[in-house]
């Protein structure tokens, strides 16, 4: 191309263009800051995590905590989703427990959006969709955000070159500093992600949580998938649950929490609190490195030709028959958590927790996720329902 002359005028024209592009893109980025609306079932009290760790008050890390106590005393169970906001079955499962649960005995604590600072943006170069849409039984539509594995960089910038886990000195790539599941057990004076982890630890200690779930998803090519990772203290109960699940036709790998990989819930919650931590993984093709076209359909159906080929090549750690739907992934999490709740009383009678109203594995697969969501009250009817 001939050398076109550049002048201050062309520079000015380009600047106007830069302004316009930045404005339009910024509108889409800012749309991610609008929080998802949830409808807690009757009986839930709404709190913020800063009630357990005051330094979080007024910060973007202060995430909602919902607590429902049954009429009978029993144990206390935490169901936490959204540690990694790009692993949607985790927060969607927690939302299901939030919107459906009726607690008869014991207490249920639900945190649907654990790292709420990861729900406000998407990772560069991952081409993630911004929102997932679910059609409810009454025909209305509800949306949930698909976020990033990491805390939004506007709250944690710049990332260091190397992240050093404060308690162990373990070195990881610098971007892991914004990864909530490398920040546990957290510090009261660290950055927001570390303080968030510290707040979660305070909640577990002060609320005397007996059993704590951290829900996740992993890429299908990753060895720990369709799996449960248990701390030594949780191992006996976990083994009982895995046998029960196998009997129900839900195969589940059981992995012991590695002692030398630090900063993860299944290690640090076990070592720094009295709780029994359990981390669950389902297989999510939309976060995998082998995936093809990346869009909402991939997140919801898990249908992907690249994964189909990779499965034929024997590269995956899950049975993959061409799809891995969000219903299947939420159903696996839900059935596993529910089985734990059912067995907790057998394990220790005083800690029994009795929860009703949670759809079964088959119901979720048959009717879909949207069928079990509560329609929004009119004033909340989703404003930004376009993707």
């Amino acid at each position, binding site marked *: *191309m001939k*050398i*076109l*002359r*550049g002048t*201050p005028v*062309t*520079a000015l024209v*380009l*600047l106007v*263009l*830069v*302004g316009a*592009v*930045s404005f339009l*893109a*910024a509108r889409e*980025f*800012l749309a991610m800051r609008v929080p998802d609306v949830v409808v807690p079932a009757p009986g839930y009290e709404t709190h913020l995590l800063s009630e357990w760790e005051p330094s979080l008050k007024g910060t973007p890390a202060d995430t909602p905590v919902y607590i429902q106590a049954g009429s009978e005393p029993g144990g206390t169970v935490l169901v936490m989703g959204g540690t990694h906001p790009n692993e949607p079955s985790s927060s969607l499962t927690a939302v299901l427990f939030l919107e459906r649960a009726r607690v008869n005995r014991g207490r249920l604590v639900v945190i649907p959006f654990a790292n709420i600072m990861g729900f406000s*943006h998407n990772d560069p170069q991952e081409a993630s969709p911004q929102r997932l849409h679910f059609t409810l039984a009454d025909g209305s539509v509800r949306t949930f955000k698909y976020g990033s594995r990491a805390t939004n960089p*506007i709250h944690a*910038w*710049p990332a260091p070159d190397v992240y050093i886990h404060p308690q162990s000195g373990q070195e990881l790539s610098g971007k892991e500093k914004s990864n909530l599941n490398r920040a546990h057990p957290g510090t009261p004076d660290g950055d927001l992600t570390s303080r968030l982890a510290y707040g979660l630890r305070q909640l577990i200690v002060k609320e005397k949580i007996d059993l704590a779930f951290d829900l996740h998803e992993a890429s299908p090519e990753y060895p720990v998938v369709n799996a449960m990772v248990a701390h030594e203290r949780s191992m006996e109960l976990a083994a009982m649950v895995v046998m029960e699940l196998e009997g129900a036709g839900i195969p589940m790998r059981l992995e012991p929490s590695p002692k030398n990989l630090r900063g993860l819930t299944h290690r640090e919650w076990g070592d720094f609190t009295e709780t029994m931590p359990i981390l669950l993984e389902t297989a999510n093709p939309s976060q995998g490195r082998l995936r093809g076209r990346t869009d909402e359909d991939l997140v919801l159906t898990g249908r992907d030709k690249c994964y189909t080929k990779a499965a034929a090549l024997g590269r995956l750690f899950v049975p993959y028959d061409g799809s891995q739907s969000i219903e299947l992934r939420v159903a696996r999490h839900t059935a596993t958590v529910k089985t734990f709740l059912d067995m907790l009383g057998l394990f220790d009678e005083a800690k029994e927790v009795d929860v009703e109203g949670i759809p079964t594995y088959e119901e979720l697969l048959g009717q879909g996720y949207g069928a079990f969501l509560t329609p929004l009250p009119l004033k909340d009817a989703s404003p930004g329902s376009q993707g």
Partner: protein
Amino acid sequence: MTPIYRGIVALVLFLMLRCMFREKDFWKQVTGALVLIPLVLRLLLLK
């Protein structure tokens, strides 16, 4: 540290603008414009 890094972004952005207005080659100006977009958005903490 974030305010300092916003300052560094502002500095680079200013230098980039200076280059763009002195540049005689239109396509190099376009290249500069491409770099400006993320700088502007991060400076304002919009992304």
